[in-house]
């Protein structure tokens, strides 16, 4: 047999997967060198969705950045909104009212639920579990209905403002949330039964894409992918922002860091996030949602129409932009994929001098060759899915 193998004409084959390929559900290209079905080498080519986020931010005012942040991780846009607003508020040195903090927590967690639901749904779909996909997409639709009720849009939310929010909770939001979560929990149980003990699913994801905790840290993993390796690092617990320190929730961790652990961590986080939303709704205090600082947060419309000082501030902040004092800050929030950091530099003018995003899926995608070398080509599918690369965020 070995003699036969020696004479066989075997050459490495290089194939392109992507940039538009059913497996790469972000726009990304894999240049894979194959020996039969084994991956010998892999190169990842990103940048297909690059649209110059930072350059756009530098040309607009501080408030005009918020719609751009929606388009970073477009599966959980509210977290990006909140992360940016908190970074600017840190730069200015202000803190929003308590009710606003609670509402931001609710918004973030709804977004996180939607993100994890999408991720698990797509992962199931790509491994042939179409039913699980339908169930979780239904659940996601329900969560998106809530988000739509909250801010009028499903994906491009543009909900958070520097120093406040666009609007308060709508009427009947609590009841609707209760109904939606009841339905979500039912669907969650169904998908749990369909996938977690499913032999076909487990065979595809177990011991695939595993990485040790030390290596994951060196690669800069954060979020569910790092927690799947057994490191309980969550920005919400490590450096609590907003009112996360008043919430009672657990940080689920895995053991081996393989795709199955990443899946389990995400499933559990959906449950924990629902718990957080319920707690935040029950603790929700009364009070204003916006800061009363007209140089940073626009006054209510009736004041703008009827008071000259409000009108002047409105004009100045719209035309010139708000003006944070010169300085630089880095602020991190827990995005759905990991640590989402904003590094802002202000020169005292109405435009950001620098607006840098630390995208959580960027280092994760960079580790794809490490995760895939020596594995089978079919393993790319679940691994890339559980990495959850989002083009809008990775390429900016």
């Amino acid at each position, binding site marked *: 047999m070995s003699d036969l193998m020696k004479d066989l004409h075997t050459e490495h084959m290089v194939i392109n997967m992507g940039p538009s390929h059913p497996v790469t559900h972000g726009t990304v290209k894999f*240049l894979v060198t194959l020996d039969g079905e084994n991956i010998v080498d892999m190169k990842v*080519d*990103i*940048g297909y969705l*690059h649209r*110059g986020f*930072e*350059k756009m931010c530098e*040309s607009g005012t501080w408030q005009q950045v918020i719609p751009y942040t929606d388009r970073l991780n477009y599966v959980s846009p509210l977290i990006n909104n909140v992360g940016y607003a908190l970074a600017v508020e*840190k*730069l200015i*040195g202000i803190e929003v009212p308590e009710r606003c903090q609670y509402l931001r927590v609710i918004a973030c967690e709804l977004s996180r639920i939607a993100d994890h639901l999408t991720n698990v749904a797509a992962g199931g779909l790509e491994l042939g579990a179409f039913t699980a996909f339908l169930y979780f997409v239904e659940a996601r639709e329900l969560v998106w209905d809530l988000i739509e009720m909250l801010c009028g849009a499903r994906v491009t939310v543009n909900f958070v403002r520097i120093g406040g929010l666009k609007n308060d909770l709508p009427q009947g939001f609590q009841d609707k949330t209760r109904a939606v979560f009841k339905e979500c929990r039912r669907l969650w149980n169904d998908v749990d039964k369909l996938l977690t003990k499913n032999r076909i699913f487990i065979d595809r994801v177990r011991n695939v894409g595993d990485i040790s905790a030390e290596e994951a*840290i*060196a*690669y*800069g993993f*954060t979020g569910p992918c790092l927690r799947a390796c057994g*490191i309980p*690092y969550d920005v919400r617990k*490590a*450096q609590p922002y907003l009112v996360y320190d008043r919430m009672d929730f657990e940080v689920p961790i895995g053991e081996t860091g393989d795709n199955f652990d990443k899946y389990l961590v995400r499933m559990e986080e959906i449950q924990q996030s629902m718990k957080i939303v319920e707690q935040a709704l029950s603790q929700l205090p009364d009070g204003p949602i916006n800061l009363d600082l007209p140089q940073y947060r626009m006054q209510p419309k009736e004041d703008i129409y009827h008071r000259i000082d409000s009108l002047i501030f409105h004009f100045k902040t719209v035309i010139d932009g708000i003006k944070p004092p010169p*300085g*630089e*800050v*880095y602020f*991190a929030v827990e995005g759905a994929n990991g*640590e989402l*950091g904003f*590094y802002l*530099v202000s020169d005292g003018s109405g435009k950001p*001098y*620098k607006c*840098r995003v*630390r995208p959580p899926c*960027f*280092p994760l*995608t*960079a*580790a794809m060759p490490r995760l895939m070398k020596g594995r089978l080509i079919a393993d790319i599918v679940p691994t890339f899915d559980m990495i959850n690369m989002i083009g809008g965020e990775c*390429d*900016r």
Partner: protein
Amino acid sequence: METNVTIKKLSNRFPGAIIETHSHRGDDTAVVKKESILEICTFLRDDEALLYNFMMDLTVVDYLGREPRFEVVYHLFSLRHNRRVRIKARVSEADAIIDSIVPVWVGANWFEREAFDMYGITFKGHPEMRRILLYEGFEGHPLRKDYPIKKRQPLIGPIN
């Protein structure tokens, strides 16, 4: 002060390499000489009292009109001590080159490629110093302040 541990340790260990330090809004920052960046990063990662095992972010800021023009900004995080620090190294336009920190944190690879792509800073010792978000053949570095925002370049196909 607990928050200043990093800056104190750095100043004691590398008295000649620290140019200035500040803690604006609670973010500890040290501006260091670019020649010693590799040494400082290794120290920050390995010292028992610091253990900055995460390289969270790496980027560049272009201060056009200032000399040296660029600042390479590193954001590090220590899981053990739950602490963050910002390290900055100034790089001039004429000599836009700095040591790569990939030997210290392998995750810095793509971040440095992005910095090269957007600002044209070369990282010495990087395993694969080429563009990442833009295509080969793109002219200029778009995040430099003197790159016009409305400038258009014809798209040529990707080169493998």
